[in-house]
């Protein structure tokens, strides 16, 4: 019984998600809300403001530099955690 309930709920959620798909904007649509907020600023201003031609790098290291600093800290913390958990002693 619980198995059928699980299958039924999966199918139901699948149907809900599929029902929402036609309302999504097309891939790469310039009028999509995600492409109208900060993207024009990045495309037009990133070279003038950051001096690097690669927009991805400009966003990563300049506009979202604080975020990237956190990401680097996460990697550093992960490495220290692995070291604490499973490191054996060097002789």
């Amino acid at each position, binding site marked *: 019984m619980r198995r059928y309930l699980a299958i039924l709920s999966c199918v139901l959620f699948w149907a809900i998600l599929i029902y929402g798909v036609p309302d999504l904007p097309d891939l790469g649509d310039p009028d999509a809300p995600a492409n109208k907020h900060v993207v024009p600023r990045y495309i037009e201003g990133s070279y003038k*403001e950051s001096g690097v031609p690669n927009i991805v790098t400009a966003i990563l290291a300049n506009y979202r530099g604080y975020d990237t600093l956190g990401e680097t800290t996460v990697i*550093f913390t992960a490495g220290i955690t692995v070291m604490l958990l499973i490191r054996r002693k060097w002789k």
Partner: protein
Amino acid sequence: MKAAPVTNDIILRTGASIMVPLILLWGLYVLVHGALGPGGGFQAGVILAAGFILYTAAFGLRETKKILTMEQVMVIASTGLFIYAGVGVLAIAFGGRFLEYGVIPLGHSPAEASKYGIEIVEVGIGLTVMAIMISIFYDIVLKEKVE
């Protein structure tokens, strides 16, 4: 006190001795090329770490340890993060906000200064990622005590 098994496969050893310098060079290229094309600190760090991992696979941990000890790896990891945060604090010292590269007096314009700031920050990211990848690899490889 059993040492980690070292392979004597001549194909692996010859291939590694040819490939490792090229991989490291490619990693440095990706690191400094991050501002112009695809690339950047994270990718470059992983490529550099892959070079060291291939070296370990071919010549054994003991040889790799002579090049890069555990202590040096952790020093490099901390240095990378320190460079990143240091650039941010440097911007404060020159009267800007945290990580506002434009105020650092490098080059002729704020845009050029932020270009150099981005490059320095990418180097910091690359060092940290490379060192942490090598550190995790060392930790996993060290199943037993290695002389």
